[in-house]
């Protein structure tokens, strides 16, 4: 049984004419890492600030535990936020920064000192305790801010892109540390990032946002395997998902997606669904992830290999199928293929997604038993 720690219910926030957060609802379970993921300007920070109480929603409610905190000021909410920038108090030493909230709470001196040193140890700040925090680099500042937040044992820990300014190596290490610390403390964490890879690696569940709206909530695997909209399909995954746009038509008993000279035969896929006829004549987008595109000598689609890149343990092959259509395929690194070669392709039919071009939503088809 999952207990909802934070509930955001129909929250809307406007800045003048701009709707920064548009009727957003979600639940965050106790003890999980919940990530708000989306491009810059989509309303992630605003949502986080509404949860923290720094911003009041125009509409909607926020609950922490069983309490409606919508009108509660931030200092009474027992949540803590690590800011993207200006995370530490620059005029105080690292020690004083970490101790700040404890001093506000009048924690006895010895207990305070013990706690500060413990946290400094965990976050590798021990040899910096007497340095002025403003003198340190951004990645150290983020660690100080994290220690300061953890010190007051908040019910919910909010982090706004805390790793943006760290370099790749530090980021990877910090991400692991963060998860480890979160698991040890069991604290509920809401994490904001625009980096889909970071979200996938860190989160228990992800909420994808765009233009102030919440598009989809789910585990990383759910979001990856079953995107409910074209935006989510595009935003998640690297290399990005292949899309084939066109009108669905039926010619000589076969289903084709056609646009200009592009014509892709999708009969095999369509034949396993019931209500396909209703899609005929509609503008649709077919989405297929590069790893679900196979090199297959008997495949129905033919093209020429244009570019081959090494992508991690695999090869990313760009294949020009039509003048206006290039498909990407991720294949095992030992696959023997060369640029300029003519190849045939097939799709993993289980993993083909169909979206309505107009609404950009996933088209729900019912499967033939």
């Amino acid at each position: 049984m999952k207990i909802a720690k934070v509930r955001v219910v129909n929250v809307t926030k406007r800045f003048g004419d701009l709707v920064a957060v548009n009727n957003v609802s979600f639940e965050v379970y106790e003890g999980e890492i919940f990530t708000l993921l989306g491009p810059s300007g989509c309303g992630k920070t605003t949502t986080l600030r509404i949860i923290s109480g720094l911003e009041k929603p125009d509409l909607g409610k926020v609950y922490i535990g069983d309490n409606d905190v919508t009108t509660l000021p931030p200092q009474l909410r027992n949540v803590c936020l690590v800011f993207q920038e200006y995370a530490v108090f620059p005029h105080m030493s690292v020690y004083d920064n970490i101790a700040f909230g404890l001093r506000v709470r009048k924690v006895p001196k010895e207990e305070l000192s013990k706690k500060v040193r413990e946290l400094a140890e965990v976050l590798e700040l021990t040899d910096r305790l007497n340095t002025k925090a403003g003198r340190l680099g951004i990645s150290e500042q983020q660690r100080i801010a994290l220690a300061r937040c953890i010190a007051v044992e908040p019910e919910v820990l909010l982090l706004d892109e805390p790793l943006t300014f760290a370099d790749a190596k530090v980021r990877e290490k910090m991400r692991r540390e963060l998860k480890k610390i979160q698991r040890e403390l069991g604290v509920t964490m809401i994490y904001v990032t625009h980096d889909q890879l970071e979200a996938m690696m860190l989160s228990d569940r992800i909420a994808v946002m765009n233009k102030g709206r919440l598009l989809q909530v789910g585990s990383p695997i759910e979001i990856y395997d079953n995107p409910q909209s074209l935006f989510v399909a595009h935003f998640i995954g690297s290399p990005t998902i292949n899309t084939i746009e066109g009108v669905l038509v039926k010619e000589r008993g076969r289903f084709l997606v056609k646009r200009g000279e592009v014509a892709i035969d999708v009969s095999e896929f369509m034949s396993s669904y019931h209500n396909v006829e209703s899609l005929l004549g509609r503008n649709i987008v077919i989405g297929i992830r590069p790893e679900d595109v196979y090199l297959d000598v008997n495949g129905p689609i033919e093209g020429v290999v244009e570019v081959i890149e090494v992508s991690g343990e695999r090869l990313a092959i760009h294949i020009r199928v039509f003048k206006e259509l290039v498909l990407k395929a991720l294949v095992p690194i030992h696959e023997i293929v060369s640029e300029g070669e003519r190849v045939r392709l097939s799709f993993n039919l289980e993993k083909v997604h169909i979206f309505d071009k107009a609404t950009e939503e996933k088209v729900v088809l019912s499967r033939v038993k």
Partner: protein
Amino acid sequence: MKFHGTRVLLSALKYITIGVFILWVLIPVAWVVSLAFKPYAEWRVSYFVPKNFTWNNFIVLFKSEAFIGIMGATAIVEPVTKPLINSLVVTSLSTIMAVMIGFFTAYGASRYNTPGPFGLFFTLLTRMLPPATFVTPIMVYYSNLKLLDTHFSLIILYSAVTVTYGIWILKGFIDAIPIEWEEAAMLEGATPIKTLFKVVLPIARPGLVVAGLFIFLLTWTELLFALVLTNVYAVTLPVHISKYVGAVGQLYGPQAALALIGSVIPIAIGYAIQKHLVTGFTFGMVRG
């Protein structure tokens, strides 16, 4: 070669111009310094370096009128000790008041937009009217309130007319402080007041120093109000300086000596706090 010649000429011109400006500024200062160390006989001669160097002008400042008579002029001037202390007390207290009130007002203006843009502009009013226009009504009020010639009245008046500088200077500094620092403090459980004192005030310290120095200098040199509103007990240094040259005599030497003392004090203060001034002007460095 011709080009090179022009360049030399231009740079020579530049240095000559700068030199003239420096002389323009420094000659009166040099004149005061020179006068302060000259004996009575040399006050009216035009050379800079005193023939008979003397400390007498300084010594005389701290003595009673009888000694001044010996120097050949007859003026009745009190020892400088009291005006000096008055000036230090009045200027320090009114500066602290102006800076603190200015800080809180600037904070309200910066974060809560009180008292509104017009209200803020309105605070400049005390500086837009020539002081001479309102010194008389103020004298009448103070007279009715039995506040004439008191430290208290000067402190109130000085802080009232300089607070607007405190507000405007500090508003610039507070505007530049990212709000996230205050928000972070609140999320740690600090009340707004605690946040103000523990976070904003220390971060704005360079601004407080800049505003404080500026207001201190203005108040330290103020003559008109002090001249009208004081008489015996609360006389300040600028008023006292003016007493050495007037209908009763022309004591250029002691006057120069006192001017020198009067300017050494703000210079010393400025020097003592220059560390903070430097941080003040490079405030951007503090940020993320």
